[in-house]
């Protein structure tokens, strides 16, 4: 019987070629989108889910409360890890991982710049990163030892055995490779390509005369702890509170802050990168992606439902005859559903091809390397196939219930007419499709406008032709003065400054600052920029009051500050110039006078507001040289000139630079991705919806052949007929627009709420989306309407 059904189904598909192509292609595009999105979402949700102890591993996160406002973060102080393990018996193991940016690794005559991170010796027992060579227990025990991935081993040493090889790190110390770890999976934040032992940090600090026992100094240091099975988190909470009280409370309260520690399950880390309580919650984005996937597949399903039911009168006789021959309703339902499942299975196969075709594009916008046919994906493909069967069942069920419910008498008398309620459902589905499509178009316009706004907004400094060069490594820091002088002699170089702040990436330090005379608990968390005298000039930051630093004032290099407007506001200074403030970086303090107020500027992303900042002049502790190149002139040559100068003085470290504008653009990677996905998927949504509209217009024109013929005989013009056939559909698109406008207005405003600097959702965005949808729909429909209107009535009437 099933064979019989499939035979009939296949013949139907073949006979209705255009409709079949519309259905299969629409569903395939929808499924392909789903596959890619599911791949992405699954990867995002599955970060670090492969550690057998994972359920019991937590990251220690922090919170600072000051003046009623609490900030959450994920960094912990150096001593937190080891002390926690010693003092709280419930903690089985603690492992610290510290990121230290990039480093220069030298092996024989070859140099590589790669990320640098340190980890405690327990790293490989806590986490599941299998070693290819070496001993997991001892690999990171001694100072100056390191573990690298197979990829890095291959890159550095080719086919030689990496174990025991010595690499020079940042030209400062030698480090020995003790183990090689299997290449990292895509879904890990914890794993690092290069890990040095934490004992190395201890040695380095000790050598520099410093101490690891700094309870209020924060690096990019993460503490993971492992609890035994079944420990109550509630109990841990109070133990952590006791720990904070013992070690950190006193320092924190001296600065007017309340410090707290919290635990975050390993599984949450990726989507809540700054702790569970931090505002940054990447699950929202995933929900948006999932919603897009569901929307697209829904649009395709609606096409299927509409095209099948619109052809009901063609299938009705078959239904009637089958019933008369003794078919039960159940059997008819099975028949129609199996037709749908057959169709979706064909679509599924096509969808896999489409997904593979678009994989490189998808990899590019997600910045990951997905494979569809990887070993781990075999069960996943099974799920996907299951998904396609469900899609088939869903989209097949409504037509099946409808068609199987037709009464043979009504059908066989020949007077079958699509009933009012069915037309109503069809219209509803079309409206739903176009509403979704228009919402997606509006979303695309809003997201792109927001990105454009960010790119074009004046940041308070000039980001164009501004180059940052790192000077922490090698001999650059020592020689920066000569380099600067030499650079200034180049025709393409206007200004040069050195500072601790890389515009577009980070601001050097964040410390408390307080009005002189006020107690320290009134201090304000302030971004502190330390630079030479040319900072404002080079970055082109304008002063609103007072003057810039100048070497002519002997006090400027010690006892003077320039603050930004946000700082003035935060400190509530009415007449800032001449006011005295105190900077408390922890180990010392510096008092001085405010000599100038700078306009607010955003050093990083415009998703967050400008924070209070001060600028002081220093002689050392710089990490970045910022070079202002002349506008106009060959940029490539300007950079090449800079490099030539650089290499004269810095021979021990490769020249690495970045444009501030690029670094800034990089801050919007999430929004960029969203824009690309919205853009593509809204186009696809409109495409699928229009394919459905096209199919419907064919079917309806076919059903109205006789009517059109009669109207023409009675004198209707081609225009009359075209309008007659198009206007119904256009009304539907209008209704969709009316639904889509408030919904998208609400959704997009909600999305924009998260950003400190944002555009308004404006009427022209809806207008553009609406006009786009209308025009595309009109073109789609009129193709068929005009054709029907041009048909010779003699022909159409004779066929009846």
């Amino acid at each position: 019987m099933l064979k019989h059904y499939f035979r009939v189904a296949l013949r139907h598909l073949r006979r209705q070629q255009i409709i079949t192509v519309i259905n299969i292609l629409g569903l395939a595009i929808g499924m392909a989108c789903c596959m890619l999105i599911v791949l992405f979402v699954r990867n995002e949700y599955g970060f670090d889910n492969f550690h057998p102890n994972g359920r019991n591993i937590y990251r220690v996160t922090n919170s600072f409360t000051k003046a009623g406002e609490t900030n959450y973060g994920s960094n912990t102080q150096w001593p937190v890890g080891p002390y926690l393990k010693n003092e709280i018996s419930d903690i089985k193991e603690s492992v610290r991982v510290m990121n230290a940016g990039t480093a220069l690794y030298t092996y024989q005559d070859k140099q590589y710049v790669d990320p640098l991170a340190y980890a405690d010796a327990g790293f490989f027992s806590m986490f599941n990163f299998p070693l290819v060579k070496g001993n997991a227990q001892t690999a990171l025990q001694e100072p100056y030892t390191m573990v690298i991935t197979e990829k890095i081993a291959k890159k550095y040493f080719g086919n030689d055995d990496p174990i025991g090889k010595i690499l020079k790190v940042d030209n400062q110390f030698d480090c020995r490779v003790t183990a090689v770890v299997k290449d990292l999976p895509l879904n890990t934040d914890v794993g690092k390509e290069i890990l040095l032992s934490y004992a190395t940090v201890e040695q380095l600090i000790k050598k520099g005369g410093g101490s690891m026992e700094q309870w209020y100094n924060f690096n990019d240091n993460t503490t993971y702890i492992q609890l035994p099975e079944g420990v109550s988190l509630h109990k841990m909470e109070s133990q952590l509170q006791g720990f904070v009280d013992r070690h950190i409370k006193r320092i924190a309260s001296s600065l007017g802050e309340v410090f707290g520690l919290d635990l975050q399950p390993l599984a949450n880390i990726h989507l809540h990168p700054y702790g569970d309580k931090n505002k940054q919650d990447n699950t929202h984005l995933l929900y948006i992606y999932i919603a897009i996937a569901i929307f697209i597949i829904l649009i395709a399903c609606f096409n299927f439902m509409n095209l099948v039911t619109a052809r009901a009168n063609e299938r009705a006789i078959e239904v009637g005859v089958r019933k008369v021959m003794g078919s039960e309703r159940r059997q008819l339902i099975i028949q129609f559903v199996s037709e749908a499942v057959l169709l979706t299975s064909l679509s599924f196969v096509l969808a896999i091809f489409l997904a593979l075709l678009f994989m490189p594009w998808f990899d590019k916008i997600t910045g990951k390397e997905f494979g569809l046919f990887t070993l781990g994906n075999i069960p996943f493909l099974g799920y996907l196939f299951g998904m396609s069967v469900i899609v088939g069942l869903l989209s097949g069920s409504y037509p099946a219930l409808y068609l199987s419910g037709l009464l043979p008498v009504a059908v066989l008398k020949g007077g079958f007419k699509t009933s009012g309620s069915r037309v109503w459902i069809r219209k509803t589905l079309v409206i739903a499709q176009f509403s979704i499509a228009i919402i997606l178009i509006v979303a695309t316009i809003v997201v792109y406008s927001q990105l454009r706004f960010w790119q074009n907004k004046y940041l308070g400094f000039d980001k164009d032709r501004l180059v940052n060069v790192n000077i922490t490594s090698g001999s650059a820091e020592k020689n920066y003065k000569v380099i600067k002088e030499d650079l200034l002699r180049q025709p393409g170089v206007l200004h040069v400054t050195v500072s601790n702040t890389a515009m577009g990436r980070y601001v050097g330090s964040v410390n408390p600052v307080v009005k002189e005379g006020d107690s320290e608990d009134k201090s304000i968390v302030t971004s502190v920029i330390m630079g030479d005298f040319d900072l404002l000039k080079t970055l082109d930051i304008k002063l609103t009051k007072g003057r810039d630093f100048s070497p002519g004032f002997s006090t400027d290099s010690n006892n003077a500050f320039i603050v930004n407007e946000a700082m003035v506001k935060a400190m509530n200074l009415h007449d800032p110039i001449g006011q005295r403030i105190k900077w408390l970086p922890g180990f010392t303090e510096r008092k001085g006078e405010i000599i100038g107020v700078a306009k607010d500027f955003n050093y990083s992303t415009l998703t967050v507001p400008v924070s209070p900042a001060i600028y002081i002049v220093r002689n050392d502790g710089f990490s970045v040289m910022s070079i202002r190149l002349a506008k106009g002139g060959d940029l490539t040559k300007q950079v090449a000139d800079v490099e030539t100068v650089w290499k004269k003085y810095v021979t021990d470290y490769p020249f690495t630079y970045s444009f501030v504008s690029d670094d800034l653009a990089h801050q919007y990677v999430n929004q960029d991705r969203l824009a690309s996905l919205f853009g593509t998927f809204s186009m696809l949504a409109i495409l699928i919806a229009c394919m459905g509209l096209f199919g419907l217009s064919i079917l309806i024109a076919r059903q109205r052949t006789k009517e059109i013929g009669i109207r023409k005989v009675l004198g209707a013009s081609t225009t009359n007929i075209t309008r007659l056939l198009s206007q119904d559909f256009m009304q539907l698109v209008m209704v969709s627009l009316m639904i889509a406008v408030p919904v998208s207005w609400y959704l997009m405003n909600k999305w924009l709420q998260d950003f400190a600097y944002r555009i308004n959702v404006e009427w022209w965005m809806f207008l553009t989306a609406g006009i786009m949808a209308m025009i595309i729909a009109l073109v789609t429909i009129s193709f068929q309407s005009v054709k029907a209107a041009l048909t010779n009535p003699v022909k159409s009437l004779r066929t009846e």
Partner: protein
Amino acid sequence: MIQLKHISKYYPVGFGKNEILKDIDLTIFEGEFVSIMGPSGSGKSTLLHILGLLEEPSQGEYLFEGEPVHKMNEKKRTQLHRGSIGFVFQAYHLIDELTVYENIETPLLYKNIPSAERKSRVADVLDRFNIVAKKDLFPNQLSGGQQQLVGIARAIVAEPRVILADEPTGNLHSDQAKEIMELFRQLNQRDKITIIQVTHSELNATYGQRIIQIRDGKIA
């Protein structure tokens, strides 16, 4: 075999009702060949639909082989469609996507007859109706008369005890019509199948043994 007692059929129209059939009493015996005649709109097709369990009477009793049809559930009715009643339509109503062979085979599929037996029964019918050569053609490749032949073949393949035919020759020219009517007569006489046909044609009506005239919903 078939007994109708006080059968009425009406549809609500506005506040009143539109009576199609009024108080019909009718008995049809096993092996009869009955023609129902009457002008357009007299209710003859509705009567046939009620006989074929496609419509329910508004009032009255219908006994099929002594069993009250109006008390049967959906399943039982389906059983009757599968085994006891065959339909022939004016517009043939073959399934366009199925070949001649498959169209004839379909009722047997619903009766769950095993494949081998299906094959032999379809082959028998094809043979008997002289349409073996056409078995792989689709309906739209056949003439009207040939299509109706297939329609009848499909109606009898499940070996029903009664065939209900709604103007079976309405779309055919007279030569084809004659052929079809001869076939009905043969089915009635040789195979002892009860036949009830609705027709406009006096000539066709003569093939039956009894003529029932319907006028304004009543047997005249």
